[in-house]
């Protein structure tokens, strides 16, 4: 009982002392040095020619919404969220109409999805590039799937080589006119189809190379417009 009373007295004394101390005008001298923030020097990849107001003000003018925190969302998730409405492109580069219909989910890689206003002019450019890119990809896949043409061409080469060689040999060695005639007919038929298909395959090869180039160009266009939609300037995105 005495102990409790003693503790109570000491506590009261401390309380009163602290109240008295706070009532007095105590001079406090801080022992901490003031924080000085130094100006950062030139950054290694900083483009000094970039006008900083260009990107930020430009972004405001064209109605780009700030990026929504879509960390972790994949393009597949975005497509599912959109319910495939206005889905263009593919899982790698594409876009779709976000729920609510006022913005689009846009991506240039499966795990890099942003949301932009549907009025963004860069979105229109991105859309055209991503659609063209998807078309070129379809063309490339279609051309690469033309393996049967290769098999056919090789078969025709064997047939043309065999029959035409046989015809020439038959005539030169005098094996027989009927054999030479038969082989000659087969030679003309197979040689015609061989050259016809060879021209086709040459055209396909040329088309494949063009499509590969166009695919690269449209992919770069899509990347550029995606970068602009992120709010970066022309110089930063090129």
């Amino acid at each position, binding site marked *: 009982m005495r102990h409790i009373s003693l503790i109570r007295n000491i506590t009261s004394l401390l309380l009163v002392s602290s109240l008295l101390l706070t009532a007095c005008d105590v001079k406090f001298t801080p022992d901490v040095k003031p924080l000085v923030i130094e100006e950062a020097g030139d950054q290694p990849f900083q483009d000094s020619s970039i006008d900083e107001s260009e990107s930020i003000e430009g972004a405001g003018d064209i109605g780009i919404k700030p990026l929504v925190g879509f960390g972790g969302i994949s393009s597949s998730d975005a497509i599912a969220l959109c319910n495939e409405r206005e889905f263009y492109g593919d899982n*790698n580069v594409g876009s779709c109409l976000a729920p609510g219909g006022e913005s689009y989910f846009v991506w240039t890689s499966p795990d890099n999805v942003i949301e932009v206003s549907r009025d963004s002019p860069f979105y229109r450019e991105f859309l055209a590039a991503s659609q063209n890119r998807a078309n070129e*990809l379809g063309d*490339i*896949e279609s*051309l*690469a*799937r033309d*393996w*049967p043409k*290769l*098999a*056919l*061409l*090789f*078969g025709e*080469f*064997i047939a043309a*080589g*065999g029959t035409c*060689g*046989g015809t*020439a*040999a*038959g005539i*030169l*060695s005098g*094996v027989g006119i009927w*054999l030479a005639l038969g082989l000659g007919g087969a030679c003309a038929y197979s040689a015609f189809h061989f050259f016809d298909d060879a021209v086709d*395959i040459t055209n396909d*090869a040329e088309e*494949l*190379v063009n499509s*590969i180039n166009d*695919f*690269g160009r449209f*992919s770069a266009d899509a990347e550029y417009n995606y970068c602009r939609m992120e709010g970066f300037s022309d110089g930063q995105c090129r």
Partner: protein
Amino acid sequence: MVSADNLEAGDRAALAAFLTLGIASIVAAATSEGATLVLWLFVGGAAIALVLVGIHKRIMAFFLRIGGSILVGFIAIFLPLAAILLFLVYGIGLGLAFAAGIPLGAEFVFLLVLALILVLGNLIVLVANGALFLRNRGAS
């Protein structure tokens, strides 16, 4: 001796050509559908069956009889050469597409590997036949 060597080289080239045609046709069947699929399976099966029963040797013997060793030698070089060029062009086309970062599916990796195997097989035949002809030329 030259005729026998040319015939051996011609047999090798015809064997490689029929096997190439057989494999290419079966793969063509795998990428086709309907009646075309059946046709390719038939062509591929027939090419491999011809090799198994040794028809390619008879064909070369026939060419040797009517065209002599020059025709057979010509076939021995140009059959594998044509196969190499054809499938190499395909391989280069697909390789370019992959190198450009075009996201093609796994089936195209398989086709690329197959095309390169066919190129390699025919290249071995071409080198073997070429070496045989050079050896004969050196001996004569």
